[in-house]
């Protein structure tokens, strides 16, 4: 079987990261990479190069407007959107990683190569409707992430977090698998799109086993989205993992899972009318639960990373509300929100690196007065937090705006009200971040510690933070470009993706 050049160029974006991963794996076989700085440099450069190249090919593909589909792959605009999304996230992660792992004193090539494998897996996961590839993609990005969470073995928490993530994740993917198998069994094909057609043709749309299958598939997705009650791994895993990885997980995993959910349930399975309706009613309930629980729990966190983790859970709630509305505009809103969310969260986690906060427990007290010490970072932090809280003119507001508007338009006024109340609560703990940064003077002994600790030097992390801040602001002022030019085209240009 041979591919046409165009197909190759479409395949390259997936190929390059994995190639880069293999290269890095080879490099990191060197024993004393800890001492040899240039090797580390080369590894990170390679990783960036791979990501960059893949990004380049994706943008070329996007601009060419081609949407090839070969093997079980569908490199349509949605897939390209996902690719760009994931690649940007990973690039930011790599840059922040350089600083963070140096602060941790744990610079390993494996980390990068696992990250790149995860990237490949995510792109696969979001660009196919064929269950085999879907499942393999899922595993290809889950397994490296399990490993990444536990990668910094110095800290006892790390392996515990990884273990929890792994066990829950394995259960979830088993359910996912079982669901897929059931649907295959009753339809006879492994491609979910075709399966849905066939099932409807055979009048098995409401066969109990089909419904069970769909439900189990949904479990797999919701676990990755970390929606209540499949969310409990999130805070532990985030706290255990290095900041950049936590940021990457919070952004990429969620995003990819949502896009896949959109592709599968919003598109492929639509022939099974009953499934779609049930999915929406379930998601409605879970979204509400997610909003309430995520926000309330985030309110009482004293550990910054856990707070961010719960906030990411609550954001999953907002994003799922978009699925409740289920209109094209709402899906556009979801994608738009994802873009801003990428910037906000990568930025927020990047801040921790930029502030040079390493160690197990990072509490709000560690942030005291940093806003004045590092003005640029402080302003960026203000932008992120206000945007997360959904205060205009930050980008986060527009995402919420679109989703809530569609909710109201589709008659879910009650949910919209609950949503705004939730974001009211969230405003409180985001403000707490700013209170710590600006409104509280550091305690005396904290000052003393800071004085004898060497000055924080995190140029890359700082850079990424500023970039993210710029993106968030851009989301606030160029909202049309992002929403219509990027998010909307990713949906609408795809043939019949939105029915």
């Amino acid at each position, binding site marked *: 079987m041979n591919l046409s050049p165009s197909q190759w160029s479409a395949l390259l974006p997936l190929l390059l990261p994995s190639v880069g991963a293999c290269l890095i794996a080879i490099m990191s076989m060197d024993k004393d990479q800890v001492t040899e700085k240039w090797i580390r440099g080369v590894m990170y450069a390679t990783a960036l190069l791979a990501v960059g190249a893949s990004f380049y090919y994706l943008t070329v593909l996007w601009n060419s407007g081609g949407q090839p589909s070969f093997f079980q792959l569908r490199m349509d605009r949605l897939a390209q959107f996902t690719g760009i999304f994931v690649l940007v996230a990973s690039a930011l992660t790599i840059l922040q990683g350089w600083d963070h792992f140096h602060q941790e004193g744990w610079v390993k090539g494996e980390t990068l190569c696992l990250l790149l494998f995860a990237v490949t897996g995510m792109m696969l996961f979001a660009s196919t409707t064929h269950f085999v590839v879907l499942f393999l993609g899922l595993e290809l990005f889950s397994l490296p992430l399990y*490993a990444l969470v536990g990668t910094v073995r110095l800290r006892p928490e790390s*392996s515990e977090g990884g273990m929890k993530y792994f*066990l829950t994740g394995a259960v979830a993917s088993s359910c996912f698998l079982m669901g897929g*198998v*059931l649907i295959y069994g009753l339809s006879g094909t492994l491609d979910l799109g075709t399966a849905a057609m066939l099932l409807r043709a055979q009048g098995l749309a409401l066969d109990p086993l089909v419904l069970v299958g769909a439900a189990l598939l949904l479990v797999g997705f919701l676990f990755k989205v970390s929606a209540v009650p499949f969310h409990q791994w999130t805070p532990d895993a985030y706290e255990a993992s290095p900041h950049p990885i936590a940021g990457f997980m919070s952004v990429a995993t969620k995003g990819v899972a949502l896009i896949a959910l959109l592709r599968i349930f919003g598109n492929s399975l639509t022939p099974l009318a009953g499934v779609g309706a049930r999915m929406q009613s379930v998601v409605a309930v879970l979204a509400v639960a997610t909003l309430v629980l995520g926000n309330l729990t985030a309110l009482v966190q004293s550990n910054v990373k856990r707070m961010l983790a719960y906030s990411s859970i609550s954001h999953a709630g907002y994003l799922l509300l978009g699925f409740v509305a289920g209109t094209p505009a709402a899906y556009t809103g979801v994608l738009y929100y994802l873009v801003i969310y990428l910037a906000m969260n990568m930025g927020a986690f990047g801040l921790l690196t930029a502030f040079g906060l390493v160690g197990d427990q990072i509490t709000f007290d560690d942030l005291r007065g940093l806003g004045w010490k590092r003005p640029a970072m402080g302003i960026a932090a203000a932008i992120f937090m206000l945007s997360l809280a959904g205060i205009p003119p930050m980008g986060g507001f527009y995402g919420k705006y679109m989703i809530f508007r569609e909710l109201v338009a589709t008659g879910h006024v009650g949910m919209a009200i609950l949503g705004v109340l939730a974001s009211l609560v969230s405003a409180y703990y985001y403000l707490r971040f700013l209170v710590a940064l600006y409104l509280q003077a550091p305690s005396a002994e904290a000052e003393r510690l800071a004085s004898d600790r060497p000055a924080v030097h995190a140029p890359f992390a700082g850079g990424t933070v500023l970039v993210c801040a710029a993106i968030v602001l851009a989301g606030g002022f160029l909202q049309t470009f992002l929403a219509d030019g990027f998010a909307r085209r990713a949906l609408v240009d795809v043939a019949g993706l939105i029915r």
Partner: protein
Amino acid sequence: MSGLDAILQGGLQGYLVVALLLFAIGLATVLLRRTLLMQFMGVELMLNAANVALLAFARFRGGDAQAMVFYLFIIAVAACEAAIGLALVIGLYRHRDTTDSDRAASLKQ
């Protein structure tokens, strides 16, 4: 043939029931046992359950090779999960000197 003997005489239903029960047992292991390795085996059982169902369906679809291929991939995945999972268990054991998941609960709230 009616439900029950369909199961007993090894009709498709029988295999499916076995698969689902196996799945349930695996889940039960994860939920009830505290030893990480046991819970891990439970996961393996759940994967196996999926295999049983898959191949049963394949058989009743006239030996569908697609399913068989998928079965291969699942085995690969199972192996990978084994590798990662056991590595994590070992890592945890090195720090905590325990394989009891309830004792590895320092991350909470």
